């Protein structure tokens, strides 16, 4: 493991991210649309699990920014590998594990920052988060970002087609988001939908986020952490394996 190379890869991606004005703008407009506009519109309609709908989806919107940002970061790997900067990294004398981990960390950091944009809306929609919970929330957001990024890296590593990517993102990102309990409560649902919800790592992430911000929980805290950590580890290992394959 080459830590210098890892940090360099991490740092470079961050520098690039902050030089991309258009994308930074997008990460602010998304929560605005969902929280303020949709949430306000729907709030008048109903309450969920004892809280207003806007509050209920707040943790889900954080997760939305996390998964979208994580996937967008990793998408660039497919292009970069054939035509872009990743070739410069791949011919360098550094272990493939450093490359994968560096990319995972930078994708997670970028996604984490985008998640923070949503968190900043908490006072606007009148959610009160105690300081202790806030300190828990930050590493939790990073963990979820890390899980999504590692998944993205595995998908990118296995994809050879550029066009197929848009399809994958629709068949993976959107279902993952909608089947995570972000937008509606996941108890008392038919078996078939419950099955996919429980398979989805984001579900456990959203559950933890909702537990910390609103004190609403579905699964045990240990199950949530375990599922997320194991999922991330497995994805990371597959990622390193794929990068080592050199095909």
């Amino acid at each position, binding site marked *: 493991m080459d830590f*210098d*190379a890892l940090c*360099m*890869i991490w740092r*470079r991606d961050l*520098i*690039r991210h902050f*030089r*991309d004005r258009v994308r930074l703008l997008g990460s602010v407009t998304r929560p605005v649309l969902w929280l303020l506009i949709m949430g306000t519109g729907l709030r008048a309609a109903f309450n969920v699990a004892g809280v207003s709908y806007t509050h209920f989806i707040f943790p889900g919107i954080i997760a939305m920014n996390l998964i979208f940002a994580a996937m967008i970061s990793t998408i660039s790997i497919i292009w970069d590998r*054939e*035509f*872009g*900067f990743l*070739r*410069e*990294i*791949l*011919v*360098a*004398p*550094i*272990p493939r594990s450093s490359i994968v981990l560096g990319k995972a960390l930078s994708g997670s950091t970028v996604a984490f920052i985008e998640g923070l944009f949503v968190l900043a809306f908490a006072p606007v929609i009148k959610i009160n988060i105690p300081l202790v919970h806030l300190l828990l929330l930050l590493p939790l957001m990073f963990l979820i970002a890390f899980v999504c990024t590692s998944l993205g890296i595995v998908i990118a590593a296995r994809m050879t*087609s*550029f*066009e197929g990517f848009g399809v994958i993102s629709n068949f993976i990102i959107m279902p993952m988001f909608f089947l995570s309990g972000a937008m509606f409560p996941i108890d008392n649902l038919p078996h078939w939908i419950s099955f996919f919800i429980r398979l989805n790592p984001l579900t456990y992430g959203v559950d933890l986020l909702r537990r910390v911000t609103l004190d609403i929980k579905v699964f045990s805290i240990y199950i949530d952490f375990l599922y997320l950590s194991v999922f991330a580890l497995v994805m990371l290992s597959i990622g390193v394996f794929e990068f080592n*394959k*050199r*095909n």
Partner: protein
Amino acid sequence: MDNIAISVNNLSKSFSQVLAVDNISFSVEKSEIFGFLGPNGAGKTTTINILCTLLLPTSGEAIVNGFNVVTYPNEVRESIGIIFQDPSLDERLTAYENLNFHGMIYHIVPQIRKTRIQEVLNMVGLYLKKDHIVRTFSGGMRRRLEIARGLMHSPQILFLDEPTIGLDPQTRQHIWDYILSLSQREKITIFLTTHYMDEAEICQRVGIIDHGKIVSLGSPLALKNKYKVSSLNEVFLEVTGRDIREEGADEKERLGGFIRARNKLR
């Protein structure tokens, strides 16, 4: 074996059904300027990718600077520099930042790194532009920056994949003069591919690959004598035929073509 830089023995590479490289063997001596020529789709890029450790061979072996590309990839990577056909610079970083990144992942220590960056930038005449974002660079400037970058870690072999494609005559001349002086001064081995046959004349030896097989190998003079023609262009056409190839462009080639056209418009 001491003066051999690259040794390729019975190398083959197949992708699903396609045999891209078919049992090729050749060697390149140290300090040699070696030209690897062939029509599109002949197997040039695949061969270079194998030599640069980006691809694993299906069978056979490739030894670069004494190291097997399969078993000692990092040792190979340390000792070679590559300039790809499609530029691999980071457009959002400055010239300096690009070189610094390179120095870092090639383990050049900070003190030496700074000096080395200055040296290579001066060598290609880009020192004054070191803090400019690469996006603002012309095609010729980018190519020069890539050459500077490829040389930063003082490699023993420099791989150049179509180094002057898309550049104007002045820049082409400048880059070639530079490559030649490099070869003489630093005794670097140069392995290049090109479609410009007048450039290939400068090589000490050329290998022509077609349909995955080496169909010709030797010095430009020897080849011209063998086929009784006066230019490498004629040799090439003799060996690979005068007919235009029926080529389907797969997705990757289409995208590659699009990028190169876009780059030319800068």
